[in-house]
């Protein structure tokens, strides 16, 4: 649905986006991560036909954003970072206005669509209130409803939960997940924990380039290299260290005392699973085992690792 090829954007001597390439498939929810100034907003603005690119190509739904921007704008719903709305309008008036400028000129169809998005975004209670009097959470919902009013195939959301409290953020993501119409979604955020729950794929940007792209789980795997197990045992420390280190596939071992128990962190080679051998060792030595758990790296670890790595280059 979205194909970005060698996209470059310069503002004077500053390069905001540099030779950026990626694709987003139909129905995918993809998160664009990056620190401030990484080029996320610039990229999304180019995709939404708001800014021109300095070089490269972008096609959305088969239409070029530079030469056929009107066709692109018809199929894209764009939520800008600041959630700009007309504060003097009532919610229903704002949605009517947005529906009109998005090409829904039939009164009946407009009413149906507005009714649908008001229900989908839970705006029934505030539909006759002035936009300027709403809380941030409701304003985000109004902006999302305005995005959805013409049933766009693609949603481009720039920092959609910025400024919301945790409860409002949770509601927003639930809303996005529960949309009945299947959308292709490209969103930017710097809240990594949310991306892990919502996005099927993550693109990490740094200094205008994509430095990592995969599912959140796979990315988390890459940062730890292999696998890390947390094993809690009641056993003599030295003997346990010796026996665990002897297991084939174990590459590292550390121990933390926890009262009468010890917590061993076992690093293993990528692809090897030593849980069975650990269990057998415990049984053979007549030790007590209260937990054996796989520990994965977090997306935050990945983010820090890849941005530091690319910063050193």
């Amino acid at each position, binding site marked *: 649905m979205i194909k970005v090829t060698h996209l470059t954007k310069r503002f004077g001597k500053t390069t905001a986006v540099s030779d950026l390439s990626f694709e987003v498939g139909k129905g995918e929810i993809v998160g664009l991560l990056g620190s401030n100034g990484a080029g996320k907003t610039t990229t999304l603005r180019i995709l*939404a036909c*708001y800014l*021109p690119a300095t070089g490269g190509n972008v096609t959305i739904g088969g239409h070029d954003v530079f030469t056929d921007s*009107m066709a692109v704008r018809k199929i894209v719903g764009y939520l*800008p970072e600041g959630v700009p709305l007309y504060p003097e309008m009532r919610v229903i008036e704002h949605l009517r206005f947005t529906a009109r400028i998005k090409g829904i000129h039939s009164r009946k169809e407009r009413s149906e669509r507005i009714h649908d998005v008001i229900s989908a975004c839970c705006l029934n209670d505030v539909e006759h209130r002035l936009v300027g009097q709403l809380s941030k959470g409701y304003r985000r919902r109004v902006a999302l409803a305005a995005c959805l009013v013409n049933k766009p195939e693609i949603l481009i959301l720039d920092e959609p939960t910025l400024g919301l409290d945790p409860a409002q953020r949770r509601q927003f993501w639930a809303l996005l997940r529960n949309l009945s119409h299947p959308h292709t979604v490209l969103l930017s955020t710097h809240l990594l924990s949310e991306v892990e729950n919502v996005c099927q794929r993550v693109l990490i940007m740094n200094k205008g380039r994509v430095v990592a792209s995969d599912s959140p789980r796979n990315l988390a795997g890459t940062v730890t290299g292999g696998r890390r197990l947390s094993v809690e045992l009641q056993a003599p420390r030295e003997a346990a260290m010796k026996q665990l280190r002897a297991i084939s596939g174990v590459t590292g071992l550390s121990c933390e005392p926890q009262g009468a128990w010890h917590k061993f962190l076992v690093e293993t080679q990528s692809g090897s699973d030593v849980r069975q051998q650990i269990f057998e060792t415990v049984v053979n030595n007549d030790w007590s085992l209260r937990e054996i758990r796989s520990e994965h790296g977090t997306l935050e670890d990945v983010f820090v690792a890849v941005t530091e790595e690319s910063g050193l280059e």
Partner: protein
Amino acid sequence: MKNFLTICCRELAHHFFSPLAYLTITVFMGVTGLVFWGAVRQTLGEPISPQLLLFHPSPLWLMIIAVSVAITMRLIAEEKHTGTIEVLLTSPIDEAAIVLGKFAGAFCFFLAIVAPTALFLVVLRSFSVGLNSPDLGKIAGGYFCLMLVGSFYISVGLLASALTRRQVMAAVLSFSAIIVLFFAGYFHHLFDEGPIRSILLYISIREHVSDFSMGIIDSRPVVFYLSSTALMLFVATRAVEARRWKQ
């Protein structure tokens, strides 16, 4: 066309739902009413047409300039400042429809401000004894001129608003441009016959108003105002489009 009407209606609604609009209308009516009353008192007993008393005093035109600047300064600059321009420009709507819709909305509001001045002539007629029936054709000529000048001033203000994201800057830009054009016509007598004098006479609002309010409809000022308005709107559209130009 539908998008143009949508933008136009939004602009009109924005004006009429704001208390500032009614304050503007009140101040405009108050000042122009006082000016008209003063002109009537000064010319008591003189054989002078009432429409000249309405359309000739300079304070009326200064108020027209002030109102035009006040109406137009926010049109696009405010959208840029609040970011709503991002919503408009990423919607499937042509830039020309945005500019023309905003122009039409502002012009309709301008008409709503100046139209009540016709009441001055009605009141004057009602309370005057022995005054001849007003020449409706000449009055219509005066208002036609007012509309032409108003559309031109609004287009200049719209262009200024499209060039900046700060309303104050837009107001300063449009006021400066309009005031230069307005006073340029006053200085034609400083020059001997020649191209400069001709140009100053050609753009002199005072000359145009005199002709129109005497029932003389000259096509040259009509062409001047309509073509200048069209040019300003074209440049304003290009200024809004410029964001999309490949760099």
